[in-house]
Each structure stands twice: as C-alpha cells, then as structure tokens.
C-alpha cells in the first residue's frame, strides 16, 4: 500500500479530490472554496482541476449554501458544503435542522439528501470571536443528522470520502487547529474496506483509566497518556470519531476493564457530548465503575478572547488532574 505523509488538511483535500474523481455528482460549494481554495486551503486546486461547475464559489450566505444544496440533492447531486468557520453556521441552522435533517423522514424514505456539511471547528488558533466554537452538540441533538469528526490525517482522508459516499446527511467537523499536523496516510486504500463511519477506535490502549475524546482533543489525550505513562499509569484513549450516532461499544468494554472514565471536549460541559457519554457509561458499566465519570471541557461561558483561550481549552494538565481525581474517589 502506498503511504504518504500528509497534513490533516491535505488529507482532506486528497479525499475530496478522490470523491470528485469517483462520482460526477459530487459538487463542492462554499465561500471562497474556488480560486482561493478556502480560507484554510482545504479545497486548494480542486476548482482548477474540476471546474467551476463542480467546485462552486457561492454568494456569502450560509443559509443559501445549505438551502440550495438541498435542491441540488433533490436533483440528484451530492453536495459537499463548506461553512467557513464554526461560528458562521448558525444562519444555516434552520436549513440544516428543519430541512436537511428531516427530508428523508418526511418523505418516508423516498428522498435522500446525501449532503456533507464541512465545518472547521474548535479553538486554539488565536482567532477573533466566532472563529473558535464547538457546535457539535447542537447538531448531535438533531435526529436525522449524523455528525462525525476526524482526529488524524488517515481518518481525515478516509472519513471525508465515507461521508461523501454516504446517503446520510453528515455534519463533518474538522479540527482546525490540527489541520497542519502530519501523519501517514494510506492513499490507495479502497473505501469499502475502511472502517464504517460510525465506528470509534482505540487510539492508544491502556489499563488504568479510559480517556474518551474526539477531534482536536484526541491529540491532547494522547499527549496526556504519554505523560501519564512516564508516571507509571497506562491510560486508554478512545477516539469517538462519530458523535451522532455514538458508537460506545469499545468505550463500555474499556471502562469495564479500567473502572474509570474521563470525557474530554472543547465545547462547554452543560448538556454536551460528555454528559451523554457519561450517562450511557453509567447505565452500561455501573458495577464496573470505581469513580463517577468525569468531564474535562471548555467552561460554560462564551468562547473567550484568544489571549486566554489556553486557559479555557482542556489541556494535558487538566486531563491528568481529572484522571487523578478518579483515583482519589
């Protein structure tokens, strides 16, 4: 198998390129996705190679991007929509939640909306307000949508292709601060052999406690596990990959072994993914738990000014502090 070293951003680009090559119905649309290649250059070069009918620079209106993509999907296209930043998705929220998510259900299965909504999400890049948000709970709470996020270049490459090939509407969250992180990518891996989109994966095996994360926090948890290992504590790290529907089989299996679980995400804790994961672990692993499931998250405040975002975002120390607390219970 050919393995290339790619950044996460380049892996997404390569995955979309492959999707455009494989299916003439795939179209990419969004603000600045054409000549500019997107503000993060994730669609770099695609318009040049596939033309402006397949990689479409749209007017600057997010509801319009998603709403017209619904129409294209009814027409038989497979739109891949880019929302420029997490904080700009809300004008499209109605179209996503009331239209995209419900069309298949309302039509009793007769109409599919095979749409991917790509959103760079999360903080850590020193951006101004509205550029660092984690809106995953809003979408994960919506029946009819699937929500996925990648944590490394290999997953970015495969999962974006899986998402585009899927008939389900998928909100695809890209960990923007990890766009530049490099890793090996098997570029000729045939798509059907790759794992199903919803499967979680063990990112690092361990025996003493289970860290559960997704997107940008997987790297943080892996770093925490490396640090913990130096102190003789083996942490298992699980990358959820898909947030809706959650795939928690491996999480339960892990927590039954370790007895301790910490869920980590950048989004605020209140009614967040961590709450759902904790509740389900409690239901499924009650007699195995040595401590309550803890959450390490952003605070329940608006995303703060970037000069203090390092204090806001969960980091290695806060993760390890929570692990310590599970042992002190």
């Amino acid at each position: 198998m050919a393995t290339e070293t790619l950044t996460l951003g380049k892996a997404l680009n390569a995955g979309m390129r492959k999707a455009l090559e494989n299916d003439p119905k795939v179209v990419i649309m969004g603000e600045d996705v054409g000549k500019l290649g997107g503000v993060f250059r994730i669609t770099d070069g695609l318009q040049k190679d596939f033309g402006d009918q397949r990689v479409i620079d749209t007017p600057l209106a997010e509801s319009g991007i998603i709403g017209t993509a619904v129409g294209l999907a009814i027409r038989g296209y497979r739109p891949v929509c880019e929302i420029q930043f997490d904080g700009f998705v809300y004008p499209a929220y109605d179209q996503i939640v009331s239209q995209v998510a419900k069309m298949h259900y309302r039509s009793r299965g007769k109409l599919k909306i095979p749409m991917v909504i790509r959103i760079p999400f999360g903080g850590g890049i020193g951006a101004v307000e509205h550029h660092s948000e984690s809106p995953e709970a809003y979408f994960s709470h919506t029946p009819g949508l699937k929500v996925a996020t990648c944590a490394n270049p290999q997953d970015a490459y495969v999962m974006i292709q899986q998402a585009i090939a899927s008939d389900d509407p998928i909100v695809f969250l890209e960990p923007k601060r990890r766009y530049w992180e490099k890793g090996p990518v098997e570029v000729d891996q045939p798509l059907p052999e790759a794992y199903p989109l919803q499967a979680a994966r063990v990112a690092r095996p361990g025996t003493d406690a289970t860290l559960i994360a997704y997107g940008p926090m997987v790297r943080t948890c892996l770093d925490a596990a490396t640090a913990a290992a130096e102190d003789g504590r083996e942490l298992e790290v699980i990358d959820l990959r898909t947030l809706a529907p959650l795939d928690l089989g491996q999480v339960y299996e892990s927590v039954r072994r370790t007895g301790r679980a910490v869920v980590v995400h950048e989004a605020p804790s209140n009614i967040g993914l961590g709450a759902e994961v904790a509740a389900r672990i409690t239901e499924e692993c009650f007699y195995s738990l040595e401590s309550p499931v803890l959450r390490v998250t952003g605070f329940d405040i608006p995303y703060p000014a970037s000069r203090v975002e390092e204090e806001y975002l969960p980091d290695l120390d806060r993760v390890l502090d929570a692990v310590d607390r599970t042992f002190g219970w």
Partner: protein
Amino acid sequence: MAKGDPGVSTRGRRAVPRSRKGATGDPELVQLLTPEGERIESVTGPDGTEYRVDFTDEEYRSFYRDLVLVRKLDAEATALQRQGELGLWASLLGQEAAQVGSGRALRTQDMAFPTYREHGVLYCRGIDPIMPLGLFRGVDQGGWDPNEFKFNMYTIVIGAQTLHATGYAMGINMDGKTGTDEGEAVIAYFGDGATSQGDVNESFVWASVFNAPMVFFCQNNQYAISEPLERQTRIPLYRRAAGFGFPGVRVDGNDVLASYAVTRHALDNARHGQGPSLIEAYTYRMGAHTTSDDPTRYRIASEVEAWQAKDPIARMKAFLVKQKIADDDFFAEVDEQAKRESVHLRERVLEMPNPEPSSMFDHVYPNGSPLVDQQRAQFKQYLESFEGSAH
C-alpha cells in the same frame, strides 16, 4: 379598478388585435380577463413584454372546470377539519386563479416547489388531491417522492423552499438542460409574508448570479396571517426583482388567463436560458390563514366584499356565458363532477389509517442508526410488556 375597455372585443378571434397598457387602470397589473368577464386581447407588461393567450373553447372550459374543482375540494377539506377529520387545513379560497393559471403553465418537465397552500397547483399537475391530506390529518408528514411528481413536498417553514428550488434550478443548468423547448424550469411558490424572509432574499441572489432557470411565483394574498402587506414592504413586491437583477411583473392573480400567460412566458424564458424572474400574483386570501385563524380580528368585511367582486371563478363564468362558450348543462356537469370528487376525497380521508406507532422509527436515516434501532426495539418490548395486562 377600471372596467374593461368596451372598445375591445372579448375574444381573440373576433377581436380587433390591440395591445395596451393599463387595462385595469393600474399600469402595473397584467390582466386578460376583467372581473366582469371581459376578455382583453393582449397586455403589455412593465418591461414591454406582450402577454396574450389563445385558447380553444374546450380549453377555456377546462380552465373553468379546474377552478371549480380546486375550490370544491378545498371546501371539502375545510369541512373535514371542522368535523375533526383533519388537524388543520390551509385553504386556497380566493387564490384559485393564481394557482390554476400558474400550475397549468408548467410543462411536464418542470418542477414545482410549493408552500403548504398549493393544492390547486398540485391538482393541475395531475396529482391525486388526497396526497397532501395525510399531512393535515396527521398520519404522515408529506411522504411523497418530489421527483416522481415533479412537485416537492409541502414546506411549512416560510420561504425555505425557495432555496431548494434555486438549488434544483442550478442543477438543471449543471445538467445542461436549458436552451431548448424541452428545457426544464422550476417554479417556487411563496407568499407576501415570505418576501421578508432571509431565505427568499438569498434565493433571489443565488438565482440571479447563477442565472437559474426558475420563476419565483409570489401569491400576494395581502396578509401574512394577520399582518397586512404594509408590514412587509414599502414598494410593490414585483419591483424588488429589479434590485436583484431580473424581471418582475405583477399579474392579476384572480385572472386565470393572465396568470397562465405570465407564468408560461416566464417559465419558457427560464427554460431557454434567460434566467429567473419574479411574478407577483396580486390576489386575496378570502378565507382564514388556516382553520386555526380568525380573520375577523384583523380585517374588515367591506374589504373582503370588495375582493369578492373580483372573484376568479365568477369572472371566468361570466366570460364563458357572455361568449356562449358554455351553457347551463356544462356548469351543472362541472358542479356534479366537483361534488363527486369531493365526496370521493372525503371517503378516502376517512379511510386513512393511523400509522403503526413503531413506524415512527422508520426512515430517520437512509443507512439507519444503532441508536434508533435500539429505541425501536425497546419501544416494542415496552409495548409487549402490556400484552395480557388488563390495562
């Protein structure tokens, strides 16, 4: 409103061909049939387009038939709601001409994106009028394939469908399906209230810059539930099109012939690659917004009476009578058909079964979801736990 010019004959083949503006006294309104049933040979729209229709007597009669049919079926649905058989009904009363005219202007290959009131358009597409009643009875939420009927599911969120229509029309361009008589076009329905929505304005932008082959068909029925037009706009709605860079025209929405002529022209322009246009069908919602509404709280009887005098069916009937295109036997036969079809509709509504409770878990995702599967199974188990129980 001025009366039709008595100097103009009412029928094409007998008329002195003559075009004119302002047949109604309103220079902005395209009208081919006056409220008194006088036929106007042709009218020039604000952009110089000349509108005219040329129908056979049989076709004129069939327009009348459709108008009566959709009104009768609508009245039956209202009655069904009053009797508790429908949860809600959004009546088209008063808007029959705008819907029948525009609906019949669609060609087979054209695609329609309705609101929740386009029962008349649906009927003219040849679709069984029972189709949307499941939604209003509460036994489904649409449930049809838009592509099968070239008619999208009803959209309740105001204006959202205009973007879907625009995207679909962009797809027509991408498929290269414009530029000939067989070209495809899209019609997006919405109301005066919707013109304040962001989605509608965004769809204007999109359609314009992508030269989408579509017609924005605004039925200005003067009210968004209780709010009069003045709360939505300071200028005639059709003039908004100019700001977006495409033509706009106001048509007498109670004139089925003009509604047809204007829509057919706009659709044909679109299918030939000339891009979008906006039609403002100037009409009046004679009934309530829906069966849950009480219009006496916000409008006066004299206003309703004034519009009653412009009734779309009465004027068509007057025209047919004056021109001896139809006789009493014909009108009686149409009424009989309307009655028959409405009884048939009623019978079938009453027979609509409630869905199986567990079917609510179906079709959430094309590829399914373990979470939904789990909840379906738990729900089934829960129901089974009552089996054999006295309760």
